[in-house]
């Protein structure tokens, strides 16, 4: 159902003010949660961002008139967390606090 929502928002030409996304973001702990959500909120147009530790999913509500989902993923990768689409640089990853250095998926 969620994929359907995401798909239908893209199919429409008009940009959705309340687009819902659930994206995978890699991380470990409460500290990661704060960092990931903070990075998401730093992107203009992000209305709600909630990252769940258990399934590593970031629940987003985004005003697509202001920015795109890729912008959010870039912002999160910039603070060291891999997303499904955009990966963090090795340098940014290494800047993370010890407990936050999650296991990276080999590419």
């Amino acid at each position: 159902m969620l994929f359907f929502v995401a798909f239908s928002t893209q199919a429409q030409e008009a940009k959705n003010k309340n687009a819902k996304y659930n994206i995978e973001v890699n991380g470990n702990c409460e500290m990661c949660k704060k960092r990931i959500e903070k990075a998401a909120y730093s992107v203009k147009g992000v209305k709600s961002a909630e990252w769940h530790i258990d399934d590593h999913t970031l629940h987003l509500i985004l005003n697509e008139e202001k920015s795109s989902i890729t912008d959010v993923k870039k912002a999160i990768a910039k603070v060291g967390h891999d997303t499904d689409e955009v990966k963090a640089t090795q340098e940014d990853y290494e800047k993370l606090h010890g407990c936050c250095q999650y296991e990276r998926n080999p590419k």
Partner: protein
Amino acid sequence: MKNIPLFLIMLFSTALFSQVEKEEKLEEVKVEGNKKGIKKSLSMTANTTVVTSRELLKAACCNLAESFETNPSIDVNFSDALTGTKQIKMLGLTSPYIMITEENIPSVRGASQAYGLSFTPGTWVESIQITKGAGSVVNGYESISGQINTELIKPIKDIPFYLNAYGSTDSRFEVNTHFNRKLSDKWATSLYIHGNTRVSKNDMNDDGFLDNPLGRQINVVNRWQYANPESGWVSFINFKYMKDEKQTGEIDFDKNRDRMTTNHWGSEINTDRFDFTSKVGYVFKDMPYQSIGFQNAFSSHNQESYFGLNQYDIKQQSYYSNLIFNSIIDNTMNKFATGLNFTYDRYDELVNTFDVGRIDNSVGVFFEYTYDDNDKFSYILGARFDYHNRLGAFFTPRLHVRYNPWEKAVIRFSAGRGKRAANIFAENQQLFASSRVFSVLDTDGKIYGLNPEIAWNYGLSFTQNFMLLGMNSDVTVDFYRTDFQNQAVVDLMQSPQQVNFYNLRGDSYANSLQIDFNIEFIKHLNLRTAYKYYDISTDYSSGSFQRPLQSKHRFFANMEYATHIVEKGRQWKFDLTYNWLGKQQLPNTASNPEIDRLPTFSPAVYVFNTQITRTFSSTFEMYLGGENIGNYTQDKAILGADNPFGATFDTSIVYAPVFGRMFYAGLRFKIK
């Protein structure tokens, strides 16, 4: 995957009516496995303590008034020597200065101020949120020292059947039965029936007066809950009916023969109450952070009573309406709530032969902004503007700030203004059971001749959680100050034959300091301690005194122990509470004949309560407890008891338990 949006809607729809409750839920997820009776969050903005139903099982806890006995934030006092009603205080101020709500609708106010807390049976309660300080502007302008919100059990989460029976050696018996049905996946309903009675006369102190009133109460609530996660609509509908009858006074008093005569002194207090409340809420599609809620409450409260030769009748018909819109600015770090309130109160009030009835109404708008950086810092800034036919047009600002300076620590600050009409007779009706002459010395004001009460409250709080020799511990220091700009002063210092009411001339303030220390020695063995210091001073016409019947120093300790749960849910639980109250300023009795004179200050008082619970299975448990097991009682509970129609008669000066040791036993049975 499909359930996630539904879950979100459910989550936010409960947030609609109770933000505190939402936070509590999130909290619950985190602390699972360590179920605590009293929870203090490090991330909540206001200084709120959440009391869960688990905590309420620790005391005799027949009704809401008695449910705070294991909680140091609230002081449970001994009200008077007649009605056995327990009064509560917060920051040293009595319940009229506390906003008391049930599911965020004002419940104990106006006519119900004296006995209202005893009209909610303890078994109905799901949780209680106690907020110290100014409180939120969403519910109104009246709160001064804090807010107490009670959440009742929600029909959708309820179990099909619950039974509780209770009996005690002061011959009080209680039965609570709960029934619940889920009518569909969207509708659920609960029916709760409560009955209590005290059948036999007790006079342990041999003063010729009943220590506890004879009485009976029947209390019924029918609740309906609707939740439709697909559409985003939620609703609650409640119907409540309560009838309470009390008879007290001399043992030999016969209400049919001696009513309003001087044969024997006696009193009856009979109350009928009906409540209807409804809530409708809508959570916007694709915007779980945006919602609209509309609450309506109608109540009719009718008390008919006499105390010796004093007659007091009060009927209050009340309508309350609140429309709230919740949303965000840019993102969920910036939330706001805004809306409208309307209240209407019609009082038909008769003090002896004087008709003091009135009609009050008010309309107001509010706006409350919440900032939360999702990390260390948050604040709630609220303001409301009201127009009231007696209080005038006025502005109510309130602020709460929270900051986590380092790990496991939180600093909170709050400030705010409150304004209210003091119902001087309803709030002080225990004084009718005395030979005091009531006089209102001002005539220019719009509320019984008095002006509205106005106070500012400021508070600072610090909590640190830490490990002490490997044991979970926490310490909290709270300091609050209430400054009255105007107060309806209740003067018992002038003369033992008078009670005078007048507008404050001079200063009146309440300072309170509370230091809590809690430690978990081993799993299931917890100690809670609190020291409280109160400096509550008012300028009376005869000079400046500490508020009568208030201790400067109080000490509280509660120890709880539970065995590990073994097969089939078998468990033992033990609980012991100790309260020590330092000397209390007493009302002036210096001009009485020596036999009816009390000292300026009372002696120190201590009370021990204890309870043992045996859980036989997850559906059946029994409990046995004792209150005041140290058997401490007040020497002279009633002044002039030998001559109740004489000039020195007074039942209102109670600084210690009137009834001695009391034991009780009960059972709880559930069908899940």
